[in-house]
């Protein structure tokens, strides 16, 4: 029997993990925003167009969509669209900073099997979180979590992007999740969108990556990862979930104007498959785009094929390579064997591709303390963290090894972690 990884390489009739960013508008200006959100785009899909897209999801049997943004709840029709999706048996999991989670909204969400909520939190403490997400964002997230817990919403998600600053807080995040009856979700910091500006300073160190891997092996059954750490499989044992780049195969992104990209971390013309309005609908783009056909064809591992870890990590994350200026057929910038850092040293300053669009706030509520990287930073003249108090990463907990995951031999795989 072929493995699921092999089957998934050739794509599915519909994505498993479809991210739909409803708007580029956001009340925050997180320094690592992968969609460079802030301001609404005038071409964003209308309510009627969104409803028609949901109807198409139902016809394609898309089980659920991950709705994000921007901050999706700032769209005036957000709740109407959630209701329309659930009426069409399309589940919704939406990511929010918590700004619109009132007591009433929490009660309403708790009552539905078809809606799941993911609260973004990038620090287990206010200082660490607000440095990345902006002043007041920790308090907003905590208030939303309190309201969801009080409304009896069991198992909502707390979604954390693992950074150099919070990699030592994994146990503290798990404790927060326990306190609110929530489930912890850890995902990888990508150099996408504004994330490219802070990636050098915020991506976990090699030692933190190793400790994260050990922590995930020990706690992986309880923690979701969106399968985003498959590059860590190069350490040896695979983490739960799909150890494969799902871009265009099981994953894709629909952005607020209806553009379909291979994955949420690849908002760039190089990964643009088509548009749901101009190219005959989402199903047509998913099934017939040339870009997706290429991504589903057998890939060359390039320089990586000579490495003994290649079968495990499959060369890592396409978007991470692309936005750090590395060739797609080479190692991931965070390759656990160190090949990525060697390759990064050869990338000329300023040569990495920039995102194709930027909806960042031009001015106004930018409440962040990490400055945007200026070109000089690449050359090491000035650190974007300059002026901040030094904050060495707290000591990581001793690595504990997990018992081996049972290899999947049955005819059924329970994919709780797949694209979770």
């Amino acid at each position, binding site marked *: *029997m*072929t493995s*699921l990884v092999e*089957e998934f390489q*050739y794509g*599915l*009739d*519909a994505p*498993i993990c479809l991210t739909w960013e409803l708007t580029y508008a956001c009340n925050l200006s997180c320094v690592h925003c992968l969609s460079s959100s802030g301001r609404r785009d005038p071409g964003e899909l209308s309510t009627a167009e969104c409803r028609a897209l949901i109807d198409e999801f139902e016809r394609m*049997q898309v*089980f*659920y969509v991950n709705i994000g943004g921007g901050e999706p709840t700032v769209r005036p029709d957000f709740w109407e669209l959630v209701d329309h999706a659930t009426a069409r*048996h399309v*589940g919704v*999991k939406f990511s929010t900073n918590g700004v619109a989670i009132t007591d009433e909204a929490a009660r309403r969400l708790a009552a539905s*099997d*078809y809606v*799941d909520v993911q609260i973004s939190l990038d620090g287990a403490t206010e200082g660490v979180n607000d440095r990345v997400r902006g002043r007041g964002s920790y308090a907003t997230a905590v208030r939303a979590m309190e309201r969801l817990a009080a409304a009896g919403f069991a*198992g909502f998600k707390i979604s954390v992007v693992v950074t150099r600053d919070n990699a030592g807080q994994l146990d503290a995040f798990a404790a927060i999740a326990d306190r609110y009856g929530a489930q912890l979700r850890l995902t990888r910091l990508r150099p996408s969108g504004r994330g490219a500006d802070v990636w050098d300073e915020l991506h976990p160190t090699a030692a933190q990556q190793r400790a994260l891997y050990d922590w995930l092996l020990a706690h992986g059954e309880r923690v979701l990862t969106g399968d985003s750490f498959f590059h860590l499989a190069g350490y040896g044992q695979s983490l739960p979930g799909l150890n494969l780049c799902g871009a265009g195969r099981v994953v894709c992104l629909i952005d607020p104007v209806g553009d379909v990209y291979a994955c949420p971390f690849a908002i760039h013309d190089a990964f643009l498959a088509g548009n749901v309005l101009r190219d005959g609908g989402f199903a047509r783009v998913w099934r017939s785009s040339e870009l997706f056909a290429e991504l589903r064809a057998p890939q060359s591992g390039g320089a990586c094929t000579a490495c003994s870890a290649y079968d495990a990590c499959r060369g890592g994350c396409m978007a991470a390579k692309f936005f750090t200026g590395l060739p797609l057929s080479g190692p991931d910038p965070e390759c656990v064997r160190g090949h990525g850092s060697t390759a990064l040293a050869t990338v000329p300053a300023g040569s990495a591709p920039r995102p194709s669009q930027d909806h960042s706030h031009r001015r106004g509520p930018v409440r962040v303390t990490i400055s945007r990287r200026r070109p000089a930073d690449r050359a090491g003249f000035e650190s974007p963290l300059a002026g901040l108090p030094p904050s060495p990463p707290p000591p990581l907990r001793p690595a504990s090894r997990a018992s081996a995951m*049972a290899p999947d*031999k*049955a*005819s*059924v*795989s*329970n*994919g*709780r972690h*797949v*694209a979770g």
Partner: protein
Amino acid sequence: MSTKDAPFDLDGAWRLDERVSIRPERFGALLYHFGTRRLSFLRSPVLLEVVRGLAEQPSARAACVRAGVRGAELPRYRAALAALAASRMLVRRSP
């Protein structure tokens, strides 16, 4: 998840949980449970036929026979059905 030791009553009457949606794929099918928010994969078209037949057949064993599962293959299908029951994709029904 270990599946091979899970008990499963092949002679009982079963059906898919009503909150489970099935999407056929080339390799078999994807299942999604809206209550538990879990995905499962049916990794053969025959297993998909078994699962689809559960509600109409008097027993899971009958659904297997109907889908063409032969005796020697039965333990493997029993294990697969046990895994689906353990993740609440399948529920018992009155015969």
